[in-house]
């Protein structure tokens, strides 16, 4: 029996039970489709986070107060021991020549008002360096003035949302606003930026860092953002920054210095595990589909017992009977797999078009392994029924027993 005849025979047998075949196909298609769609989702989440961090630039160091337990993993912050201060910033700038730019960052939330209008917004305290370090752009006016670190100035740069909420169509430049109990003058408006690292950059007010520290009565900075000259210098810079801060903090390593690589690596690991977990869940539905195939094939064998007897009477040896039923099972699973591939792809295209920020492409390994597993499931779960058929006694089988 040649391959084409085998396929035609198996196909004919499957076509004879349209509904049963369709339902089994559906089971396999759901299994494969689920693997593809869910891994696409996981990969999409990973791509999203990666893009966010890539936007930071790869030669960025982030210093935060407090010591993390392990290096390299996601930071778990311990109790803040010593504050990160503006003097720390000055020391780093002075003693670590690899540092190209440094932007201290203080963060708080305050009520901002202009005339009768008020709005609760996130207030960032920083320096002019924040602009290049975070790849921000000024829309109109100027950014923060280049004053000495510890000298505040009553000026503020506002985000686009803040502008439209407080000023409407009025020109905000030069206008006085209140932040908490303090008065500031608007000198600039940021260009629209949108969400960045979990913060809506359009809904912020940026003031000089020492003003922010005073405003919030904070002893410590929230972060110090450091940009080095080149990506290759990042590890050396990290060590040097660490040394300077350790010295200044009485020999204790009570700060954490993160690199983009380490943060990205941590997220990649977490989200990679998430993708695997999703794939695992989907794989369960694949194996359920495999058992479905086995079930259908067992029913098929017992229904077609006289046919098996006939094939034997016509001269088919056991291995040929085995092949006929195996091909049928594999045909079922392969067709189901292809159908699932199609729906999985269509699903992930719809997904990534509905949420453009989520680059939901199914990873190649998932596609290939889902198809391979579906084929293997057909073969594996088809073996038992096929062997049962091959071993039937021809006389009893002809009699339908």
């Amino acid at each position, binding site marked *: *029996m*040649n391959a084409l*005849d085998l396929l035609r*025979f198996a196909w*004919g*047998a499957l*076509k*004879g039970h349209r509904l049963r075949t369709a339902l089994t196909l559906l089971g396999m298609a759901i299994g494969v489709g689920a693997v593809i769609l869910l891994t696409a989702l996981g990969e999409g989440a990973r791509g999203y986070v990666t893009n966010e961090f890539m936007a930071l630039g790869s030669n960025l160091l982030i210093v935060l107060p407090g010591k993390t337990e392990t290096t390299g993993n996601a930071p778990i912050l311990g109790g803040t021991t010593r504050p990160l201060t503006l003097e720390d910033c000055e020391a780093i700038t002075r003693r670590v020549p690899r540092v190209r730019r440094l932007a201290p960052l203080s963060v708080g939330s305050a009520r901002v008002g202009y005339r009768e209008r008020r709005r609760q917004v996130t207030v960032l305290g920083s320096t002019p360096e924040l602009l290049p370090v975070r790849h921000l752009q000024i829309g109109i006016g100027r950014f923060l003035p280049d004053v000495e670190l510890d000298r505040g100035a009553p000026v503020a740069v506002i985000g686009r949302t803040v502008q439209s909420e407080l000023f409407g169509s009025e020109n905000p430049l030069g206008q006085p606003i209140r932040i908490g109990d303090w008065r500031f003058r608007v000198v600039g408006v940021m260009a629209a930026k949108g969400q960045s690292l979990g913060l809506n950059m359009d809904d912020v007010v940026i003031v000089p860092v020492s003003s922010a520290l005073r405003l919030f009565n904070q002893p410590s900075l929230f972060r110090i953002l450091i940009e080095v000259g080149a990506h290759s210098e990042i590890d050396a810079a990290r060590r040097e920054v660490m040394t300077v801060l350790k010295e200044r903090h009485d020999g204790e390593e009570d700060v954490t210095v993160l690199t983009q690589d380490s943060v990205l690596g941590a997220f990649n690991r977490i989200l990679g595990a998430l993708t695997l977990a999703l794939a695992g869940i989907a794989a369960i539905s694949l194996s359920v589909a495999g058992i479905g195939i086995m079930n259908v094939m067992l029913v098929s064998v017992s229904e077609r017992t*006289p*046919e098996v*007897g*006939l*094939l*034997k*009477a*016509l*001269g*088919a*040896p*056991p*291995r*040929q009977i085995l092949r006929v039923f195996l091909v049928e099972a594999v045909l079922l699973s392969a067709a189901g797999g292809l159908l699932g591939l199609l729906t999985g792809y269509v699903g992930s295209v719809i997904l990534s078009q509905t949420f453009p920020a989520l680059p939901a492409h199914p990873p190649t390994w998932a596609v290939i392994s889902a198809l391979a597993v579906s084929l293997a499931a057909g073969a594996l779960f088809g073996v038992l029924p096929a062997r049962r058929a091959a071993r039937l006694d*021809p*006389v009893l089988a*002809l009699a339908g027993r």
Partner: protein
Amino acid sequence: MIELRGLSRHFQVGDQVVRALQDINLAIPDGDYLALMGPSGSGKSTLLHILGCLDRPTTGRYVLDGREVGSLPEDELAEVRSRKIGFVFQFFHLIPRLTAAENVELPMVLAGIPPAERRERVAKALRAVGLTDRAAHRPDQLSGGQRQRVAIARATVMGPSILLADEPTGNLDRASGHEIIELIERMNREGLTLVVVTHDPEIGGRARRILKLVDGRISSDGKAA
């Protein structure tokens, strides 16, 4: 040439042994026409299955064309069935999803005969049973007699030397039963060894030789009256 020597077939049912065939000695020369008769349960079908290599004797020898086949492994038995034996059953045993032509083609498909040759031989076999115009019909679109003729075309398409028929008219009315018998008798005249199991004395009487089984033993073997 078929030779059975001291052949018996026992079935183990629970702790009981059913002796379906006992000490059968029989020679069937090529081209013979034999009717197997006897009461129900006397072992006719069992004997036919052994002759067709669908079943093996418990003891004794079965020599087919000079070769001991009673103890061959399953794969070689299948080969013998494919090349030398044609079966016709009481219940036709056509595959319902296949057309008449496809049913006739099946033994050649299983034997791996190339498609061009298959088409030719299917056409010839269908012509021989007078069903050329029904080639594309499915079994449920055919009458009982037509179905049995498709089964005969299928049984002979591989060019076997032996045609075994187990009550081939058992499910047919008189007229179509008669046609079927005439058809297979014609094939016997062309050289095919024919063994027919039947309850019908009229059909049995047409055979060259009647073998009567009682309780698994040959009770008489001779020319038709």
